[in-house]
């Protein structure tokens, strides 16, 4: 077994064995999906709400898992000294980070699949015609939010702070960007704030695909904004990422 596969397996073991991470990172978006789909059973733009909620809750899953989950995992490991300890082993540092990324992407893929299967089973949800664009948007979103996750992990100082910071960022962001439902009735101030948030653009892309049949390559502005956020996060990480605990 290659070293990379070995490390991804190790990350998976650690992730699923940690009940807090499995519940918060993996299960929470799934639970919110079930809750919102059950409460909001009406229609949006002439189609059942499940078309909106299934894709927007997966978009929330992108933020929650590849941004929030990754940031928390990395900060906890850094503050416990796990990252520092790993640096003394022959495992190359870039491979360690790539495995962490790959592992959290695997969690996201499983989460998105779970949401889609539940949608199919309970809410009569169907894949949109442009499903390759939908999947491409989720993958692009996952990579960009992972970049932001690395950036956030580099800026968050304490292990206890990580979950708090991540929740304070993600939940309002998802609410404002339409991850929990359409924002057409929001006051213009809130919509203006939403216009700078990366998740707004991911939700826009997926709703463009689902409602208007617009493939991802015909939404270059939203893709560019998302990509810029991902790049900014990655650059912050390149500059500030630390393998050693900050609080000692």
């Amino acid at each position, binding site marked *: *077994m290659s*070293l990379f596969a*070995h*490390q991804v397996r*190790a990350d998976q*073991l*650690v992730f699923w*064995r*940690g*009940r807090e991470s499995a519940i918060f990172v993996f299960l929470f978006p799934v639970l919110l999906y079930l809750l919102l789909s059950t409460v909001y059973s009406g229609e949006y733009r002439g189609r059942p709400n499940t078309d909106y909620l299934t894709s927007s809750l997966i978009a929330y899953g992108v933020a929650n898992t590849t941004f929030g989950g990754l940031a928390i995992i990395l900060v906890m490991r850094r503050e*416990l*000294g*796990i990252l*520092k*300890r790993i*640096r*003394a*082993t*022959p*495992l*190359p540092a870039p491979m360690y980070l790539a495995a962490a990324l790959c592992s959290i992407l695997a969690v996201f893929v499983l989460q998105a699949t779970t949401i889609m299967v539940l949608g199919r089973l309970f809410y009569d949800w169907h894949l949109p015609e442009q499903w390759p664009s939908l999947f491409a948007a989720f993958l692009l979103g996952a990579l960009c939010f992972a970049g932001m996750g690395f950036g956030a992990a580099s800026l968050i100082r304490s292990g206890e702070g990580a979950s708090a910071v991540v929740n304070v960022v993600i939940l309002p962001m998802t609410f404002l960007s339409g991850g929990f439902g359409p924002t057409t009735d929001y006051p213009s101030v809130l919509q203006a704030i939403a216009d700078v948030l990366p998740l707004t653009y991911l939700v826009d892309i997926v709703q463009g695909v689902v409602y208007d049949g617009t493939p991802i390559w015909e939404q270059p502005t939203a893709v560019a904004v998302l990509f810029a956020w991902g790049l900014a996060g990655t650059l912050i990480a390149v500059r500030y990422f630390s393998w*050693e*605990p900050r609080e*000692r």
Partner: protein
Amino acid sequence: MAAAVDVSGLRKSYGDHEAVRGITFRIEEGEVFCLLGPNGAGKTTTIEILEGYRARDAGEVTVLGLDPGRRERTLRERVGVVLQHSETWPQITVGETLKIYAGYYREPRNVDEVIELVGLVEKRDARIKTLSGGQKRRLDLGLALVGNPDLVFLDEPTTGFDPQARRNAWEMIRGLRALGKTILLTTHYLDEAQQLADRVAVLRDGLIVTEGTPAELVASSHTEIRYREHGEVKVVETDEPTRTLHGLTSRAVAEGRELEELEVRRRSLEDVYLDLVHEDPT
């Protein structure tokens, strides 16, 4: 014989603070070498430079013939590390953790052997969060050994242990020595250095103030002569108290003055070390 570790003129500053101010030492293969000194003496800075964590400001350093600053993988294959503070994932077991680490090395030791070596057989399937502090420290040692290293760095391996746990740790370190490993150990316990080390370097304020076998350090503990001159306390340390004292007194007599508060006493190793720990750096 090649040196396992060769350090000369090593310097390291953090901002204005010079943590290591030009130290030189050599560790032979198969030797247990101890850096002894109080907190803040520069022990951890030195060992972390050798481990490749910190860049040095000046000096030559080789570890197993390689420059640790280049962080080569071939070097990390052959070196085991116990950090002063580090934890592992609390939710997985001792056996799982060791297996993960074993996977990082080309020629790891058998995981069950390592578990036995560090005395965690009964805790093999216990999650790390259920282990005591001493057991976690033993796991740290196991993680350092699972790659079957030639050289092991132990940064304060027994700090915070109760006396029994320290004795156990000492037994384990002696076991490593019997396996032919080269060991660099830091500690601020004099007895630990005396018990374990083939050679000891005493570090203070970033400088090696004395170095030798534990027996040599005891033999070198000399006589201290104190007196007051022009209102200032003078301290002279000497291996030849009769001659030194004669020189001092005859000069004073010739100049017709008194060596005020003259005091002569033999210093033990413990005195030497306690002075290092407690005295102001003057």
